[in-house]
């Protein structure tokens, strides 16, 4: 690759010759003198693409194949194709609809609180107040702590007798709650844990967005006598949208797929496999009960649902990315 010479040794002609192709601008394709094949991007991208093909695409395709098979503990090596039966089983299983409903509820509740708390705190942190850097550090702590530790911590906090949550409730004269032994108590515990864990991300993204809104807009609004509400609705929210929408889209996908919290807070779906979202259920079915073919089909269904949800996002990303 060393077509490189040091600048000093280069002749004037060579410099001139090298001027036109300087900008490998993807917008114009490679510039005209460069229409010939360039190996450089392939050399830069190849290692990653090869690795991605080997450890992402290949397992993915393998999963597709297995999803049409009867692979399970009894038929681990001598599996056969059984067509669409796994997919039929997924869609005729009452559990699927139950956990799908729970997953939607779980995602909606979490994203709602992540975004409202996050944006709200970001607006406060964006004001001129003393000590906001300290608050900022405190408020991103939940993001910094490893997720599984957060989940295990909160499981301890929700302990009926010794957990801090019930002890604090008692101080306010509220009767202790059976957090971890009832279906919806556990679900609430999972949601609270995940809200704690997820709001800092939205806060930081929103803070970045707020800092890029020019003060002049607010000053102009003040001159026009706009109320704080007017400013929120007409300046802050519209200008935050472009930053928040990708973050929310990713947030939905991550939350939909986040089973760390559900799995660890509910201790693998207790009580009696009621506390699951789709991902934690498919993990249990596939890797604890080893109904492998069924779990592979189930994974595909989850993936296709998310793909349908995120399709616009992907298209838009692709469209914008080729502009740069």
């Amino acid at each position: 690759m060393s077509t490189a010479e040091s600048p000093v040794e280069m002749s004037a002609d060579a410099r001139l010759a090298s001027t036109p192709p300087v900008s490998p601008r993807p917008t114009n394709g490679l510039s005209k003198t460069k229409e010939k094949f360039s190996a450089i991007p392939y050399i830069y991208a190849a290692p990653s693409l090869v690795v991605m093909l080997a450890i992402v695409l290949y397992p993915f395709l393998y999963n597709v194949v297995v999803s049409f098979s009867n692979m399970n503990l009894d038929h681990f090596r001598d599996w056969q194709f059984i067509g669409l039966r796994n997919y039929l089983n997924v869609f005729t299983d009452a559990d699927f609809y139950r956990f799908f409903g729970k997953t939607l509820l779980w995602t909606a509740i979490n994203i709602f609180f992540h975004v409202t708390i996050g944006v709200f705190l970001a607006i406060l942190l964006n004001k001129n107040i003393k000590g906001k850097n300290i608050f900022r550090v405190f408020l991103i702590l939940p993001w910094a702590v490893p997720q599984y530790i957060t989940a295990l911590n909160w499981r301890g906090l929700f302990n009926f007798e010794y957990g801090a949550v019930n002890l604090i409730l008692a101080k306010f004269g509220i009767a202790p709650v059976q957090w971890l032994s009832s279906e919806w108590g556990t679900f609430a515990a999972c949601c609270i844990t995940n809200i704690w864990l997820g709001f800092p991300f939205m806060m930081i993204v929103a803070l970045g967005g707020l800092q890029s809104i020019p003060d002049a807009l607010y000053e102009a609004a003040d001159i026009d006598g706009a109320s704080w509400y007017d400013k929120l609705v007409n300046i802050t929210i519209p200008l935050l949208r472009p930053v928040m929408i990708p973050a929310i889209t990713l947030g939905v996908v991550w939350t939909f797929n986040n089973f760390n919290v559900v799995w660890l807070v509910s201790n693998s779906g207790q009580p009696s496999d009621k506390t699951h979202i789709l991902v934690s259920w498919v993990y249990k079915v596939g890797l604890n009960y080893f109904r492998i073919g069924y779990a592979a089909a189930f994974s595909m269904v989850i993936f296709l649902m998310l793909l349908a949800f995120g399709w616009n996002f992907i298209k838009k990303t692709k469209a914008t990315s080729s502009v740069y």
Partner: protein
Amino acid sequence: METAELNPKTIRPNGVSTNGRAVKAAAVKNPRDVSPAAKVWIYIVLTLFSLFAIFPILQVFTISLRPGDKLLSTNLELIPDGATLDAYVTLFTARPFLKWMFNSVLVSLIVTFFSVGLASTAGYAFSRYKFYGRDSGMILLIATQMFPVTMLLLPLFIMLIKLGVYDSYIGLIIAYTATALPFCIWQMKGFYDTIPRSLEESARIDGCSEVQTFWKIVFPLAQPALVITALFSFMTAWSEYLVAAVLVQDQSLFTLPMGLKGFQSDLEVSWGLYSAGAMLVSLPVVILFIALSRYLVSGLTLGSVKE
């Protein structure tokens, strides 16, 4: 808008006006200033949320200091009666905590090395060049974000068993790199996008080759993004339990998450040990995270989609 147009230079990002104060002060207050009453409310709200954010962590700290016979206490004091570091000592002397830590560091560093190494050049290719497979590559990168964990874990599990390399770090490293790499590439691409092309153009005019331009001009400028990317991939591997629980059964290969989860299973006995371990595991990443958090805002917004 008028003030701003008349006097654009007087408005600093933080809203402090340097000169022209007379002009502005009459008509416009700094939009980020708040009245004293509002300030009180802001402090109250921020304090409440900060307490919400810190409390679970303080609670774990408290439990880690409890003496063994008072683990199950209904006392909410920060420093418990008879506070002791016994749990921490036990971790290092009577439990294989150091071994777990070594294993975790090893796996995390390998994953970081692969992810950052591969992403630093791939991100550049995606940012600057058109090439065959680029668009499908980008789609693959985003699509991985929509994979449920089992989508890769299940096939990986089967393949590792069939290849006879189950119960080794190979599976862990593959799984974590597959998780971290797409995000790293995305992040690096986003950062390269913000480096002005004029720099590369000048370098080329001065006689750098395309390859030199990247390694000598662009790559050094990308240091902050490399740091953030490294942190994210390190944390991906450092903080993961559920994949590890499937791919590793041998106790001598346990990483920190598996060791800690083991304590959790008999909470009555080892709550203190778990808490002490949780503090030790979290502390380094929390410190790193906070120290680098000033890069976070830019890193994340750049890493994400631009509209």
